[in-house]
């Protein structure tokens, strides 16, 4: 039929207000979810690649026992399509400017770094430049402090073993500047091909050989599977995730993106739900008319199903058209923040949730009432029929809830998250039922509209049904937005707490017991006091309960700690960032017992009461485990797997001491004086690493703010959509009130007050529900301690009241500017 066919014309439909709202909601839904999903995928790629630069690659393979790695492995990796590079690290003495100095050499092959960039400069006053390569053969790049120590200048020669190399640049930052105890002395970077000609490396030299790999995830994991069975205990395979400092931040950022995306899905579903329900209800008269004209129920059903499908397609296409430029813009911002070009990558998988969200929310919310349109009586044309009973709405509600939570589940794949949100929503809705009852009971008694307050309360009562459903949607929207704000706040707080201003950025190792006091004095006199000093004895864990440890532990567990010497210490007080999880800390005066780090204990199955035997040089010490301790590895302070009691027999063995301290950039030169006075002490400079971690935290923060901004914008749009659903009624009422003699100012005040009350109610409900959801989330996803976030929670009801009051004012605009007579006629 041509007429019913015309009903499907999108252009014609666009002229219908309700259809416009549905399509706008769909477009916004798809745009928000798609932008967030695309951006999250982009961010993940960027972050991983940025974090990969901590390894200068995606994966590293290191041999610690002085034996080179088999070149065939490199060939295998290249054959699998991976990029590769090599690195050799060792310590040696260099000579230059009449001085000898112990340096830490890093020799790199062509191709280094596979990820990240090296930062150099041609002289102290020259600008910094970033390169994706190491020095050319015959050249070295050296740490600026070394240049001062040797009293040389750029362009001079440096003798490294039997070879003279030209200092061509100062090395400011290397992408894999992570610290290991081998890299103690100032850095010299040279080309791999020059290593042989220095004749420094001999059989038995302390040297580490590293292979670097980069490439697609599939190829990397394929190679890893091939490699694992071939690995010797002294060979260590490392990925970004193993980098302890960053992995926690990365995982949390990912959780946040997931949460943000899920909330966007929920918000989008709410927007589409509200709009499409409104549409379905508004279609009753049209359906009645069609029935009068002889169109049968099945046909009406098909007609509306087709409409929904057409909208789904149009909304999705429109949403994607909006999302793509937004995504592009965000990626550009990301690039600016990172100060590095970002390859914009359009992940097709990231688009699926958006499309799914559009169709599921459209059909889950719009279809049930539309399906019931088939039952609309043709009599409706002649006389208005009673609306739907509440009982009919129950299955709709259930279908909607199942649909939406199914979506979130499909998107996040996390039952806990869905449950947390359900708890929040459940709390919200039950409070709402209570509030609704109180409102009807309390407001019924309000009489007389002489002033704005009473008129506003009367308005709330008058629109009680619409008010309650609006409060429900606003509260839910606010709950979602607040949840995100709260999670963001606690994430950022955690990150900031992890690396506070003034966190230690230098380590000193190899301090002889005799020098401890002098060194303490040296830094104290310069106003840079040291953190606690810890003794350190290197030893191997050999027996567990009298059994060789390698036999006691299942072969499946690859425990690096068993492959190398552990740093053992003794201490009397538990360090600030350690926490006893089992057993008890050493009682004063106790001479026996050890405390073991919880992860190592977990892997080896160590519990309090077990006996551990350590081999230290030619000595053996056996102790009983008295406590298991969790250690915050990313705290930038010395951390130990095993701690002995303060008066243990470990004290009898030769030890060196280690400490960390904060040295501001401006005081860096003190290190030269220090090195001269204490030549045997090694200073490990981690300030560059900390700076980079802080940069990454800043970048994650920016991304999170951007996503939060998007979600808040979506929340505002949902609110606008909900309010505009009752726009016509309210305008008509406004016109009528004016006709009946209501003053403009009274009308404005009353309407703004009514909306402000609505906003405040919704805000209070929303934040309470958000705190409940965050409580549930925090327990699982973010592992933080729960507390009420007053500084976030208090302003939200206020802001929501103000925003809604402004919305209300905006709605009233035509009522105030157009003659009431005209408006009444127009709205008839």
């Amino acid at each position, binding site marked *: 039929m041509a007429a019913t066919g015309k009903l499907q014309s999108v252009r014609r439909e666009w002229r219908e207000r309700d259809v416009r709202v549905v399509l706008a909601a769909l477009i916004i839904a798809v745009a928000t979810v798609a932008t967030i999903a695309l951006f999250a995928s982009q961010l993940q790629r960027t972050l991983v690649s940025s974090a990969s630069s901590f390894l200068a690659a995606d994966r590293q393979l290191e041999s610690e026992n002085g034996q080179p790695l088999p070149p065939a492995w490199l060939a295998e990796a290249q054959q699998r399509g991976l990029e590769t590079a090599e690195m050799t690290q060792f310590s040696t003495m260099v000579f230059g400017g009449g001085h000898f100095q112990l340096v830490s050499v890093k020799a790199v092959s062509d191709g280094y770094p596979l990820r990240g960039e090296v930062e150099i400069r041609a002289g102290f006053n020259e600008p910094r430049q970033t390169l994706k390569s190491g020095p050319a053969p015959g050249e070295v790049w050296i740490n600026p402090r070394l240049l001062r120590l040797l009293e040389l200048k750029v362009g001079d020669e440096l003798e490294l073993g039997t070879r003279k190399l030209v200092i061509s640049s100062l090395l400011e930052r290397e992408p894999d500047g992570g610290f290991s105890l081998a890299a103690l002395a100032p850095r010299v970077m040279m080309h791999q091909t020059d290593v042989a000609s220095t004749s420094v490396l001999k059989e038995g030299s302390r040297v580490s050989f590293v292979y670097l790999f980069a490439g697609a995830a599939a190829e990397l994991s394929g190679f890893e599977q091939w490699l694992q069975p071939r690995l010797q205990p002294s060979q260590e395979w490392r990925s970004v995730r193993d980098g302890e400092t960053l992995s926690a931040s990365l995982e949390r950022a990912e959780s946040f993106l997931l949460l943000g995306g899920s909330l966007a899905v929920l918000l989008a579903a709410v927007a589409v739900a509200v709009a499409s329900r409104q549409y379905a209800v508004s279609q009753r008269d049209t359906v009645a008319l069609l029935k009068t004209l002889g169109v049968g129920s099945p046909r009406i059903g098909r007609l509306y199903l087709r409409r929904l499908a057409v909208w789904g397609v149009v909304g999705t296409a429109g949403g994607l058209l909006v999302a793509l430029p937004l995504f592009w813009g965000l990626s550009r911002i990301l690039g600016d923040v990172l100060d590095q070009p970002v390859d914009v990558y359009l992940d097709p998988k990231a688009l699926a949730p958006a499309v799914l969200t559009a169709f599921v929310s459209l059909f889950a919310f719009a279809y049930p009432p539309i399906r019931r349109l088939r039952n609309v009586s043709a009599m409706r044309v002649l006389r*208005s029929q*009673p*609306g739907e009973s509440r009982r009919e709405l129950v299955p709709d509600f259930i279908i909607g809830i199942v649909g939406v939570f199914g979506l979130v589940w499909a998107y996040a794949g996390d039952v806990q998250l869905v449950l947390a949100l359900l708890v929040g929503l459940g709390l919200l809705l039950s409070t709402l039922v209570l509030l609704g009852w109180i409102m009807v009971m309390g407001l019924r008694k309000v*009489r*007389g*509209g*002489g*002033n704005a307050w*009473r*008129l506003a309360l*009367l308005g709330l009562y*008058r*629109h*009680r*049904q*619409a008010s309650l459903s609006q409060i429900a949607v606003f509260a839910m929207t606010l709950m979602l937005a607040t949840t995100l704000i709260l999670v963001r706040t606690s994430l950022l707080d955690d990150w900031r707490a992890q690396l506070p201003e003034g966190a230690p950025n230098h380590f000193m190792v190899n301090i002889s017991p005799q020098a401890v006091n002098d060194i303490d004095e040296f830094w104290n006199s310069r106003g840079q006091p040291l953190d606690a000093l810890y003794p350190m004895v290197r030893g191997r864990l050999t027996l567990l309960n009298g059994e060789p440890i390698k036999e006691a532990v299942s072969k499946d567990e690859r425990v690096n700690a068993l492959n190398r010497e552990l740093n053992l210490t003794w201490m009397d007080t538990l360090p600030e960032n350690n926490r006893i999880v089992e057993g008890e800390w050493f009682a004063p005066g106790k001479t026996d017992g050890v405390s073991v780090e919880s992860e190592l204990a977990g892997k080896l199955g160590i519990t309090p009461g077990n006996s551990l035997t350590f081999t230290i040089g030619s000595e053996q010490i056996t102790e009983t485990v008295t406590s298991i301790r969790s250690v915050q590895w990313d705290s930038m302070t010395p951390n130990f797997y095993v701690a002995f009691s303060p008066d243990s027999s470990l004290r009898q063995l030769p030890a060196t001491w280690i400490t960390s301290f904060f040295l501001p950039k401006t005081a860096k030169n003190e290190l030269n004086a220090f090195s001269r006075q204490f030549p045997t002490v090694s200073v490990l400079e981690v300030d560059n690493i900390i700076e980079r971690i802080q940069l990454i935290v800043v970048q994650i923060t920016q991304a999170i703010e951007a996503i939060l901004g998007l979600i808040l914008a979506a929340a505002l749009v949902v609110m606008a959509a909900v309010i505009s659903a009752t726009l016509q*009624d309210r305008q*008509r*009422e406004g016109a*009528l*009130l*004016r*006709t*009946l*003699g*209501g*003053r*403009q*100012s*009274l009308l404005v005040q009353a309407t703004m007050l009514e909306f402000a009350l609505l906003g405040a109610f919704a805000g209070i409900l929303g934040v309470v529900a958000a705190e409940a959801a965050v409580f549930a989330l925090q327990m699982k996803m973010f592992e933080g301690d729960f507390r009420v976030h007053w500084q976030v929670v208090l302003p939200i009801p206020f802001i929501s009241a103000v925003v809604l009051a402004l919305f209300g004012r905006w709605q009233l605009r035509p009522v105030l500017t157009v*003659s*009431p*007579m*005209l408006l*009444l*006629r127009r709205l*008839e």
Partner: protein
Amino acid sequence: MNQSNDQTRPSPHVILRVSKLTHRVDLESNTLTILQGVNLEINQSDSVAIVGRSGSGKTTLLGLLAGLDTPSEGSIELDGANISALGEDERAALRAQRVGFVFQSFQLLPALTALENVMLPLELAGRQNAEARARELLQRVGLGERLTHTPRQLSGGEQQRVAIARAFACEPAILFADEPTGNLDNHTGKDVSDLLMALNREQGTTLVMVTHDEQLAARCGRQFHIEGGVLSEPETRQQAVS
């Protein structure tokens, strides 16, 4: 209905005086003159019908007379106040105290019960005992048993009765009715117009009604015709008698 009652009312006082009223609307390409040089005087307690075809300008005239809009030219004096010189809020205050309305499409608020709809203007005017007065009026219009029904649950005739009760709630000096029976069948329309006339008489209200229903117009003391925006008063029975 007894027409002679209208004629015997003492000392007529002019409640509505219109002079040289012109109203134009700017369209995209040109200006449309809807009313042209309208002059009119209506005495207190008069009942006046303005008759004309659709689009003749009668509803616009009604809106202007009630102060819902302001004219392009000319002056309107309602109950001694020059409403074309009043601000919007002053006009609203005047409406709240002195003016009642009945619309063709009833214009009841769907969310409110019959009782609440009638209470609305009383509450807006800050009157005490709004509920008692509304109950009394609904009783008077025969809807004493339907106080808690919403417009949706009432027939068209019943809805218009609620609207009439609302119009008289604040005891207006003048009542404007825009096609009050336009949406009703003949029988119901007659009932509603009977009620309107009766209440008008009881309360001594001036009635200005716009209609295209000649029969209804004939029940008013004076009739005006409007065509092409020009108002004329043919010789009415009242004038013929005098």
